[in-house]
């Protein structure tokens, strides 16, 4: 029987209360959101917090997807299911629905949250890649105030984030542009399994050229953001050949390992194909004439 090691339990009924508990308990405490990452880690003793601060009661306070000027604001306790079903995201940031269709399974999606997924910071996890591709910002709060961290600064490598012991992620902000779209492509062997490889792409077009781009490569090393692919795209006219070139640059720079899901060479090849497809689909959604 797998059960977590013993711990003390607190239940927070407001963000304020959760922050007070974190300030008091420090590094000994972990926030429990949906639980589908943390509880398995605790069962395996990969995580052994002395205190669990259960933020399940914050599901309503931190569960929302709203358009706010030039951004979409997503509450950290928004579930995978709500992200999947959000028409706002499907229209303005379709990469979310693409990815959510393939994340875990429908039952897990009922409880798992975006804040939990991002704070787990698993380089094989899809929402970290989605937020990286979109250049999202994470709002992190403590009793002392708020910080807004770009995904680049939030993600510090596998299972590490910039969130301090007394802070919690409360909101994700997805920037919006009139001429931008996005897509996600993933290979997994069966429902609920981790990706063999996956790729997310976001494109912003201004005056016929790529003004901004975000490429995230998943399960192919500790770096999720692909700088090589992004740099290959910036300032150039969207074209199928360019997408393939950028995807190849990203694939060449990533660092997959051989494991039970495939060889390093296979994953490198696959992630390149997926990145090119994701770029193509993002362009298609912008109704771009792609040469």
């Amino acid at each position, binding site marked *: *029987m797998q059960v977590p090691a013993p711990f003390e339990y607190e239940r927070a009924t407001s963000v304020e209360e959760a922050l007070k508990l974190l300030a008091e308990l420090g590094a000994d405490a972990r926030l429990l959101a949906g639980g589908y990452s943390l509880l398995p880690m605790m069962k395996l003793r990969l995580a052994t917090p002395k205190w669990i601060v259960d933020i399940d009661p914050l599901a309503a306070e931190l569960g929302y997807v709203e358009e706010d000027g030039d951004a979409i604001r997503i509450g950290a306790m928004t579930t995978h299911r709500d992200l999947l079903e959000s028409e706002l995201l499907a229209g303005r940031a379709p990469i979310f629905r693409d990815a959510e269709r393939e994340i875990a399974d429908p039952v897990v999606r009922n409880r798992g949250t975006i804040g939990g997924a991002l704070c787990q910071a698993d380089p094989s996890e899809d929402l970290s890649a989605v937020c990286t591709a979109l250049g999202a910002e994470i709002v992190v709060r403590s009793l002392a105030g708020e910080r807004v961290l770009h995904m680049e600064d939030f993600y510090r490598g596998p299972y590490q984030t910039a969130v301090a012991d007394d802070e919690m992620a409360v909101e994700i902000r997805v920037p919006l542009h009139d001429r931008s779209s996005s897509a996600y492509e993933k290979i997994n062997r069966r429902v*609920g399994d981790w990706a063999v490889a996956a790729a997310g792409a976001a494109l912003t077009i201004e005056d016929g050229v790529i003004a901004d781009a975000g490429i995230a490569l998943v399960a192919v090393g500790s770096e999720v953001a692909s700088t090589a692919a992004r740099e290959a795209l910036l300032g150039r006219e969207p074209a199928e050949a360019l997408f393939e070139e950028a995807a190849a640059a990203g694939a060449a720079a990533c660092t997959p390992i051989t494991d039970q899901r495939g060889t390093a060479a296979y994953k490198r090849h696959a992630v390149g194909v997926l990145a090119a497809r994701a770029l193509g689909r993002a362009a298609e959604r912008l109704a771009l004439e792609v040469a």
Partner: protein
Amino acid sequence: MQVTVNVNGRDHTREVEPRTLLVHFLRDDLGLTGTHWGCDTSNCGACVVLMDGEPAKSCTVLAATAAGHEIRTVEGLEVDGVLDPVQQGFTEEHGLQCGFCTAGMMLTARALLDSVPDPTSLTDAEIRDAISGQICRCTGYATIVRSIRWAAEHPKEEQPA
């Protein structure tokens, strides 16, 4: 710690360790062994119960967390000796062989049928997607889908008020 969990419409108060998982609370503390305990890793779905009407894997929910929700287990499907149409469907269409996955499958089916205004409009693909987080190791998926379809076509008759 003391927790009070509402299961099948009744509050149950017990003294538990904070680390007690909902599946063990139901089985060991309340004796509701209809909820099965399978893989322990939130993969197999044998332990699925409804939390506020939505399926959840009870091996990956603390009993303490469940205290804020209404839990429905397979024991709560039958009411006053009348089987839920889902239970009837699993009987009619041979939806189980060994029975290990059945409780979880039936609860997910109940939630699926409750989530749409007209369950007869559900496609096989939608039914399959709904149960895709649950494993039947007898591989009886075809009959499970037929059982859920049967329930969709035989809704519970409204009781006169």
